[in-house]
């Protein structure tokens, strides 16, 4: 049983797409969001964006240690049972591989256990969505919707991962101007300046926004991220040369 969530939950509200040119998608239940591209972040969100729970560990390692308890805590704080989960949003990166895989493996396994779909989301989209919603609510800086910005996270090995955005589209999803890419640390500012975009560094991925992006994608009937992990780097391998010679 989920820790403090005895009694279970109502499963949240529903969001619906009602445009004329497609079947109406109604989203029942709540969405579980999981991301381990930086720290470990888990959230439970209603389809219309009401955040029922958001828990996280900032530890850039130790994802495997905390993932289980964080999922349990999120469910408990949201007062939902596992059967209320209708979709699992998975942060596909970019991010350091070893940790990143833990969340994706967990998202896929949780979804398998419940028989519900996984919705892959670009982890930077969650940051962009949060920035854009925040700016929209607070007035933010002027003409936030027209401002191009880059979500930037540490990719280790003296590189940054960045994704360029500009505003929200009609489905309420961040518009990506450029897909996630790696840039040497010293080159990033020059590159962003040339592209005329503002730099927005992120230290954490808001899992609630990840789940909300997934919800909006499902309602819109869109796929917003590849099913494959956003590694952006080939595995480190050195092809073996001739066997090393020993002294004769």
């Amino acid at each position, binding site marked *: *049983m*989920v820790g403090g969530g005895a009694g279970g939950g109502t499963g949240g509200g529903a969001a619906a797409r009602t445009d004329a040119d497609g079947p109406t998608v109604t989203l029942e239940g709540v969405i579980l969001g*999981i991301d*381990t591209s930086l720290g470990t972040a888990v959230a439970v969100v209603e389809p219309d964006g009401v955040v029922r729970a958001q828990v996280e560990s900032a530890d850039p390692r*130790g*994802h*495997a*240690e*905390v*993932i*289980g*308890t964080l*999922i*349990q805590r999120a*469910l408990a704080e949201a007062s939902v049972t*596992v059967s209320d*989960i209708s979709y699992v949003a998975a942060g596909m990166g970019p991010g350091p*591989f*070893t*940790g990143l*895989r*833990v*969340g*994706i*493996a*967990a*998202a*896929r*396994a*949780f*979804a*398998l*256990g*419940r028989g519900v779909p996984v919705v892959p989301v670009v982890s930077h989209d969650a940051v962009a969505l949060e920035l854009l919603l925040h700016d929209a609510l607070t007035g933010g800086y002027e003409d936030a919707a027209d401002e191009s910005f880059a979500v930037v996270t540490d990719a280790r090995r003296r590189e940054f991962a960045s994704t360029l955005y500009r505003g929200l589209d009609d489905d309420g999803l961040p518009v990506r101007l450029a897909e996630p890419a790696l840039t040497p640390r010293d080159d990033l500012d020059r590159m962003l300046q040339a592209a005329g975009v503002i730099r927005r560094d992120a230290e954490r991925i808001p899992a609630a926004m990840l789940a909300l992006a997934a919800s909006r994608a499902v309602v819109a009937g869109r796929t917003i991220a590849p099913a494959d*992990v956003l*590694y952006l780097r080939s*595995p*480190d*391998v*050195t*092809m*073996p040369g001739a*066997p*090393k*010679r*020993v*002294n*004769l």
Partner: protein
Amino acid sequence: MAGRGVHMNREPLVLGIETSCDETGIGIVRGRTLLSNTIASSMDEHARYGGVVPEVAARAHLEALEPAIRAALAEADVALADLDAVAVTSGPGLAGALMVGVGAAKALAVSLEKPLYAVNHLVGHIAADVLDGDAPPLEYPTVALLVSGGHTSLLLVRDLTSDVELLGETMDDAAGEAFDKVARLLGLPYPGGPEIDRAAASGDPLAITFPRGLSRASDMAAHRYDFSFSGLKTAVARWTEQRQAAGEPVPVADVAASFREAVVDVLVTKALAACRDHDVPRLLLGGGVIANRRLRDVALERAAAERVTVRIPPLSLCTDNGAMIAALASELIMAGRPASTLEFGADSTLPVTEIQVAGSA
């Protein structure tokens, strides 16, 4: 959920997840009965690198897990909801590879609201034996020799679920690694074990006397049950180079047979010494290198001479697999052990004495 045991009058239905090296293993057992042993291997992807590449293995695990779980459920003809528990390898093994399995197992257990058992990979190799339906039950104590590409360990098992002692292990390469490296030296492909075997078939095992690591009197005092194969590998390299330098052809069959003989000799000698020293007339063999015919033959022959009974689980359960992980958890459940809490991690150097990782409560 987590921390709670499984109380039941019937045999527990357990799904085991194993991702410590390059095999994604999903096993399903009911008590001591094997229902599925599904393995997806990334071995082919490592072949061109001459050894397991951790990042390549970890990426492959992530992609193989879900299809392997589905395949195992289909083969066992059970549904996830029917499971009594989920089991996973916590270590030892490759950290990044282990983490994929641990992350998946935790989320699966939480989503199914089932107990989770985090277990030791090496002890899992011993537990594979209980799935051998044709064999009489494992008797205690027994000495266990586990030999694979990732480990070479000699254990004293007094009880599978509560008392396993490490007698010795390799100080450098695992035996399977030595096979891979010597195969490469001889221009043979990866994995080296079957290739060396094939080459050795027509060779003379007594043609060249290669060193037996940690077998001199002084070594036997300090490292009686430990192994070392890096010196042997170097000796083979030196020998073949000298041949080449002299402009003579390298007798690959003889080198392969003599190398294999040196490995087998030291493995069997030390395992039987452990049996003698501890007055234990039982030896269990496990790990992928047990597939080596010569090792099995020599072990059986020399053990018989010393009146030691040898047990070898089915070879399909000797290589890394999820069924042995499920089997160990099943034994723990039947022994009344509570489930692990959810806090455990992937421990690449998990000691063999830690049969089950309980997690920090």
